[in-house]
Structures are given as C-alpha cells and as structure tokens.
C-alpha cells in the first residue's frame, strides 16, 4: 500500500466526505471525520519520512505517465505542507465535536463534517499535485466548502463575509485560471515539472510575464496579502470557532505554498527574482502588511478579529522571507508556515473555548476569565507569547530565521521593523491578557472551565508550540532542505 500513499492522502478524506451524508447522526459523522483526518496525518508523516530518505515521489494517476496524465509529485516542500495541513486537520476534527454541537444546528452537523472533510481534501489535493490545472480543481473544492463553512457562523454577518470571500476567492481563482491558460498557450503543457523545463525557452515572451502577473494577483488574493486581504478579517471573525481555527492555520498557508511552488519551481527562482523582480515587489508589500496590520490589530475589540488582522500581518512575515530571495529567507517562510499554523490554531481554539462558555469573544467578555477558565486562558497566553516570538516557542524560531535572513542581506532596517512589529504583537496580546487576569469577572457565575474535549486539542497545539520551539532543529532542518529544493528548482 505504501506506494499509493500519495493518492490515499487525498482520497481518504475525500471519500469520507460523501459517507458523512449517509450517516444520519452527527456523532457518527464526527467519528468519520476524526478517523479520516488522523489517517491523513499518518499518511502525510510517512510521506514526509519517505521523501526525506529517498527523494521525490512521483505518482501517476490513472497510470498515465506525466505529462500525459496527472501527476502527484511529492518533494520535501509539499510533504512538509501536507504535514502542516493534516496536523491541524487532525486536531481540529476532535475539537469540532463539542464546539459544533453548541454553535451549529443539529441538522447541519453531518453536513458540517462533510464540508470540513472536503475542505481538508481540497487543501491536501492542492498541495500534493504536480499538475497546474488540477490545482485549480482542488482549489475550488476547498474554497466552495470553505464558503459554506464560514457561512455557518451564528452571526448574520457570517453570510456577508462568506459572500465577500466567495467573490474574492472566485476572482482569485479566475485569475489563476487565466494565468494557467496563458502558460498553456505558450507551452502546451500542464505538468509542473514539464512546464519548468519548457518555460525557460519562452521566458522573454510578454505572455509568460503577464501570466506571471495574473498568477501573482490570484495567489495574493487567496493568501490575503495586503492590500488584497479585505475578505479575511470578517471571514475569520464570524465563522464558527473550529472553522476559524482550521482556516486560519491551513487555507492561507496552502495559498502561500502555491505561490512558492509556481514562482520558484514552475517559473524558477532565476526567472522570479532576476526577470520579474518579485523580491522588490513583495518586500514593500510585506513590510507594509506586517506593520500596518499589526497596528490595526491593536485597536480591535473583538478578539477573533484581532487575531485575524494579526494573521494578515503574519502572512506578511512569510512573504517577507520570500522577498529576501535567499535560502535563509525561504527557510524562515517555510518554518513560519508551520509555526504560524501551530500558534494561530492554538489561539483560535482557545477563543473557541471562550465562545463555548461565554458566548462572545469581545474583549470585555474576557474580563476575569484568567481565574474562571485558567486552562483556556493559559493556552491563550502561551499561544500569544509564541505569536510575539518569546524564546522557547516556535514563534521565536521563525523570527530568528527571518531576522537572520534580513541581516544576511544587510537589510538591518527590515530586521528592526520585524522586531518592532513583534512588539506590536506583544501589545495586542497583552491587552487581552490584562483584561483576562486583572479585571474582575462580571459574567454569569455559572461560567466554568471549558470541557476537556475542547481543551485537549488546544493544549496539544500549545504543547507542539513549545516542543518545536525547543526542538526546532528538526523543523528547521526540514524547512532548510525544502528551501534549498525551491531555490535550486526542479531537476537541477
């Protein structure tokens, strides 16, 4: 079976999704979701270890050798992203049980899990595939289910934010399709590795450059790079808690991965940096995103929205690493993909616990929760410290590489800006912490600690935050290896 892992990686959650509709009971659907997501996690870990030991795995779907058929192509880079997505998936699935029963009507619960599994398999499919059009198909699977998941939020603004996301997402997807079409028109191929071979021959054509531009805009819409982020804050704020935790930790990460994959593997680092000057375009955008969005986050009163803006800022960090155009910078990007998933997952899950008990994530609703819900708020503090980048947490590790990358390029003002932005993170996290620990509790006297079914996935993520903050050697090693793969390009 081992040789079929690439296919199973996507097919297991994808098959589990329709099965959710056959079981009428929400718990059974949940069981399926947990089973499928943990299987996916196991597969992704095995894929990663196989790729690390024996190199790229190519899997021809339908038995048709690429570029005739569709190829799944796993290298260190996407094996790494697969692990990120499936880790979060495997932790959000058990978390969802309790949370969903509170936030979503009983009739929709099997549908919720079906959409959740579809979203997961869509994201995994985008990540694993080696075919550019297949990317689009799976992108739409994940996006459509994401729109529906977000619309499940209790507030009616969930609907409008889902609609805005749908518009932004469809525009992004259509731009990507246009870009793919232009590439296809110049090469006649849809296979990534094949394109990477063919494109250098037509680098000079304006068509390829425009295709590049369209893909860039499309991806940046999907990954919410400033100033194309407007859909994100509301979507994250009003979605149900497990959905926010899942989307915030995976969807934008996969979009960043796509960007890296297209620009560095398909087009090649040389084309991106030397011909298109990608670094010089992204650097200012990323810096503005990091600083301005951190600033905006400081003034939010809804904690989920605060974290959403912080996500936009953190995406800026990832793009910043890319814009250094060095292996160290990319290492920082790839590390932060993983690390940010861990910390934002933990933070949004903690907010889910608060939502469960208090019914609100307004900052005033946090008052005194440090005593009422000590485990929840401790998880929030730990995740928050990681976001700030305190040593021994993963946040520090990514920051370390980011600054190292900036200093290697001699861009010390960039390094200073990054550090100042992390102080801003301290400010917005600390606002919440102060309210939670220094204000008197004013809410319902019945308020207790969140149930353990919500707490253990939250704390599992916190533990990973700390574990990989100390044992960063492994993650940093993989990220560095992946960065080198990306920088050298395919087949060289």
């Amino acid at each position: 079976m081992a040789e079929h892992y690439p296919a199973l990686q996507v097919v297991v959650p994808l098959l589990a999704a329709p099965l959710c509709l056959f079981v009428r009971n929400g718990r059974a659907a949940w069981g399926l979701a947990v089973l499928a997501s943990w299987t996916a996690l196991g597969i992704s870990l095995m894929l990663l270890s196989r790729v690390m030991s024996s190199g790229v795995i190519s899997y021809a779907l339908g038995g048709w050798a690429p570029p005739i058929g569709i190829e799944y192509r796993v290298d260190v880079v996407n094996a790494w992203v697969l692990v990120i997505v499936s880790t979060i998936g495997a932790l959000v699935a058990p978390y969802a049980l309790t949370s969903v029963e509170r936030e979503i009507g009983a009739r929709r619960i099997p549908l919720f899990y079906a959409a959740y599994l579809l979203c997961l398999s869509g994201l995994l499919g985008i990540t694993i595939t080696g075919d550019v059009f297949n990317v689009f198909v799976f992108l739409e699977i994940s996006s459509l289910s994401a729109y529906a998941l977000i619309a499940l939020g209790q507030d009616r603004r969930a609907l409008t934010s889902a609609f805005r996301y749908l518009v932004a997402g469809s525009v992004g997807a259509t731009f990507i399709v246009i870009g793919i079409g232009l590439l296809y028109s110049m090469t006649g191929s849809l296979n990534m590795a094949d394109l990477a071979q063919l494109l250098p021959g037509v680098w000079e054509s304006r068509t390829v450059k425009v295709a590049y531009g369209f893909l860039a805009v499309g991806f940046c819409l999907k990954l919410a790079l400033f100033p194309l982020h407007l859909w994100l804050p509301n979507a994250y704020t009003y979605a149900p808690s497990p959905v926010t935790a899942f989307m915030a930790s995976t969807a934008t990460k996969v979009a960043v991965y796509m960007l890296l994959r297209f620009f560095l593997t398909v087009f090649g680092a040389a084309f991106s940096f030397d011909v298109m000057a990608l670094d010089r375009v992204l650097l200012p955008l990323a810096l503005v995103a990091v600083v301005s969005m951190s600033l905006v986050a400081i003034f939010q009163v809804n904690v989920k929205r605060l974290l959403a803006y912080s996500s936009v800022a953190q995406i800026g960090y990832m793009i910043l690493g890319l814009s250094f155009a060095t292996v160290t910078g990319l290492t920082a990007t790839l590390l932060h993909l993983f690390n940010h998933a861990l910390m934002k997952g933990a933070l949004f899950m903690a907010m889910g616990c608060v939502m469960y008990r208090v019914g609100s994530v307004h900052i005033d609703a946090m008052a005194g929760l440090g005593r009422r819900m000590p485990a929840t708020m401790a998880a929030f503090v730990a995740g928050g410290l990681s976001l700030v980048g305190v040593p021994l947490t993963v946040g520090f590790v990514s920051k370390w590489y980011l600054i190292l990358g900036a200093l290697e390029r001699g861009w010390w003002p960039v390094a200073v800006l990054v550090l100042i932005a992390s102080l801003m993170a301290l400010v917005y996290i600390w606002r919440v912490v102060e309210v939670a620990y220094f204000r008197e509790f004013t809410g319902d006297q019945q308020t207790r600690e969140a149930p353990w079914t919500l707490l253990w996935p939250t704390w599992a993520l916190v533990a990973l935050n700390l574990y990989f903050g100390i044992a960063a050697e492994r993650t940093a090693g993989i990220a560095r290896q992946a960065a080198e793969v990306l920088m050298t390009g395919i087949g060289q």
Partner: protein
Amino acid sequence: MREEIIVRVGAKVLAPFIIMFALYVHFHGDYSPGGGFQAGVILAAAFALLALVYGLEEVQRVLPPWFVRGCAALGVVIFAGVGVVTMLLGHNYLAYNALAPDPTHPEHGQHYGILLVELGVLVTVFGVMATVFYLFAGRKGQAS
C-alpha cells in the same frame, strides 16, 4: 398553472423523452459529444420540469429529497471507489486497465472504467442538481 391541461399532458409526454435523451447522451458519450455530466443535468432538468408543472410535492413523492441527496454522495463514492478498486488490484489510482487485466487489449479495462466513472458523474450531478433545485424551490414558501 396546474389547470393548464395542455401543459400537464405536454410535460408528462415530454418527460420520458427527456429522460431517454439523457440516457442516450450518457451512453453515447463515447462516440459523440456528451457524457455523464450533461446527462445528469438533463435528467435533473426533466424532473425540474415536472416539478414546475405538477408541484414540488408531487415530484418529491417520487424522488424524495433524501434520495437525491444520497445520489449526490453516492456518485462521488462510485467515482472515488473505482480508483480504490484499481488500487486494490495493484495498479495506480484510477488506472482502469486493472479492471480487465488483458495486456493485449488494455482498452477493455478502460471501457469499464470510463463507464463506471461516468455513471458516478451522472449520479452525482443528477443528485446535486435535484437537491439544489429542491432547496431553492422548496424555500419559496418561507421567504418573507
């Protein structure tokens, strides 16, 4: 509209033909334009037509919502299931050659495979279109 006898009879007469046409489109997809997707759409359209004429409840008595919903899911299971079967037979995912292991005539396996997956597409598309139609049409009464 219910009183319009011509429409009712017309619809009743047309519907089987549309369904026939859908099946033709499906099974003739190998030789001419068409296939599971188009057939599914047409099939769903036939029932939509009946629903418009006879009312949603009537059609839902024949094709209950849970049934079409099940179809939507079943089609995906069929399609993905074919892949799993080929995998279990030792070939790659969706490598239809596995279905009729005949090295001289690989196209046999391909025929079976294409037939099956097109069936999956048909079932899903029909189920989805009908479900979506039911939901939009069924909501009419509740809109304020």
